[in-house]
């Protein structure tokens, strides 16, 4: 099996050919959005933690800029940021793609920045418009797997069929990332027994134990079971986790991708399944998987969660036949046929694998057709980490 993508200067392969207009912080986001509207195929993104947001946010923005789905980048700064556009541009440029940056204060205000931004983005658009798709083997593809709004069908149908597709992808040389440590609480053993070596096993236990520590602060009234989970029949986080971990399939876990302690780790050349030390919150998890190099994310829901992402196409699967019948317009894959007894997990898994190849080769996901361009960035507050005495994974 092969897919048709866009080769980038660093040898990675994009499944989309986007121009990313990135506001360094949300102060300049409206300007970035206005500039992005001037050409087709441009998306505007930003982050909302201020202009000295810390390494995790900076590394996520850099990683997203370097993501192979992005053909070229225009950074927009205010000018006075602690994290200047120029510094991010320099890091993103390491991927070899065209990267430009401008700052509102340097150019003499909003109007002048809009004019200059439009000029730059139109020039970038002419260049990247000439890029062509070529065929590549599956080892150039990394897929993120995520679930949300889970119900009982997620553990019985949606996640197992995605896991089957992940096994097919990994057997064909590709990689997969799962990014939600809280949804591994109670399912440690089923992940740890697949660790490729004792070091990875230790990292898996540490990642999950650290996440549990963050959530069980006495008196903090934190909750990780949503109403839809409970109405959908899931009783505890343990039950939710044991269903959730099916989606990474059955192949060995090669490592835990680090997101703190100096750098955001990309999917290594050694292909296979990886966990990522990040978050279960969907749009944030997608951004951080994109930063690690994922070109596509598959999302399983029971209640019918519907959104997308600015940079990675988002394949939506539901295992709930009733939700599919009500929300078919929003779903790429119906895995509810497993619950009704019409289809096996293997059969749906094969359909998902084919969908991955089709979407990688240019087929639009429903989220893209609907215009979903969600983007948000996850930050683990380093002050809380210090207070909880949690050290980054090494």
């Amino acid at each position, binding site marked *: 099996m092969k897919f048709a993508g866009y080769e980038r200067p660093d040898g990675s392969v994009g499944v989309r050919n986007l121009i990313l207009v990135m506001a360094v912080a949300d102060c300049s986001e409206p300007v970035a959005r206005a500039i992005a509207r001037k050409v087709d195929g441009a998306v505007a993104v930003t982050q909302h933690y201020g202009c000295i947001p810390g390494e995790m946010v900076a590394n996520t923005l850099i990683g997203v800029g370097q993501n192979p789905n992005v053909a070229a980048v225009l950074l927009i700064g205010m000018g006075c940021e602690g994290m200047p556009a120029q510094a991010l541009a320099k890091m993103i440029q390491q991927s070899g793609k065209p990267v430009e940056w401008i700052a509102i204060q340097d150019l003499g205000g909003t109007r002048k920045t809009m004019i200059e931004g439009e000029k730059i983005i139109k020039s970038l658009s002419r260049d990247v418009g000439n890029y062509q798709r070529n065929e590549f083997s599956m080892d150039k593809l990394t897929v993120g797997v995520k679930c949300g709004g889970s*119900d*009982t*069908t997620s*553990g*019985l149908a949606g996640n197992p069929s995605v896991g089957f597709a992940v096994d097919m992808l990994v057997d064909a040389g590709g990689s997969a990332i799962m990014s939600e440590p*809280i949804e591994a*609480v*109670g*399912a440690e*053993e*089923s992940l740890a027994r697949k660790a490729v070596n004792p070091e990875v096993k230790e990292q898996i236990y540490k990642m999950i134990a650290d996440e*549990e520590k963050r*959530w*069980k*602060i*006495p*008196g*903090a*009234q*934190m909750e*990780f079971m949503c109403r839809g989970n*409970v109405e*959908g*029949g899931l*009783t*505890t*986080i*343990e*039950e939710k986790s*044991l*269903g959730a971990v099916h989606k990474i399939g059955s192949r060995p876990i090669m490592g835990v991708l680090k997101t703190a302690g100096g750098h955001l780790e990309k999917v290594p050349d050694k292909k296979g399944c990886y966990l990522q030390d990040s978050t279960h919150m969907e749009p944030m998890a997608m951004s951080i998987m994109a930063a690690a190099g994922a070109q596509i994310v598959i999302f399983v829901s*029971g209640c019918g969660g519907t959104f997308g992402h600015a940079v990675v196409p988002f394949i939506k699967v539901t295992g*709930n036949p*009733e939700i599919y019948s009500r929300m078919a317009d929003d779903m790429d894959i119906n895995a509810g046929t497993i*619950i009704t*007894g019409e289809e096996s997990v293997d059969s749906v898994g094969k359909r998902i694998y084919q969908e991955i190849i089709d979407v990688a080769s240019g087929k639009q996901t429903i989220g893209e057709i609907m215009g979903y361009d969600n983007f948000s960035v996850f930050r683990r507050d380093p002050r809380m980490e210090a207070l909880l005495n949690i050290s980054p994974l090494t």
Partner: protein
Amino acid sequence: MKRAIIINKNDNVASLLSDVRKNETVHAQLGETMLEYIVKDSIQFGHKFAVKPIKKGENIIKYGEIIGRATSDIGEGCHAHVHNIESLRGRGDLF
């Protein structure tokens, strides 16, 4: 036919694949075997019922793994959910 699934032979709960009414018969699949239960509550699709009597304090087993603990006795065929099961993980009040 009202259907349910028991995922692992060690499980003490089954997940319903149909809405059921009190005293209805449910066919629960465990691998190749089909088992019959009479449910004691009206229970909706996706929710669980006990496939054997569960004592207060006993572990709840699904996927062959512990998913929580019974907070009261749960009779065979009775709805098993947040009203009679508690999580043991990620709780600030337990540690």
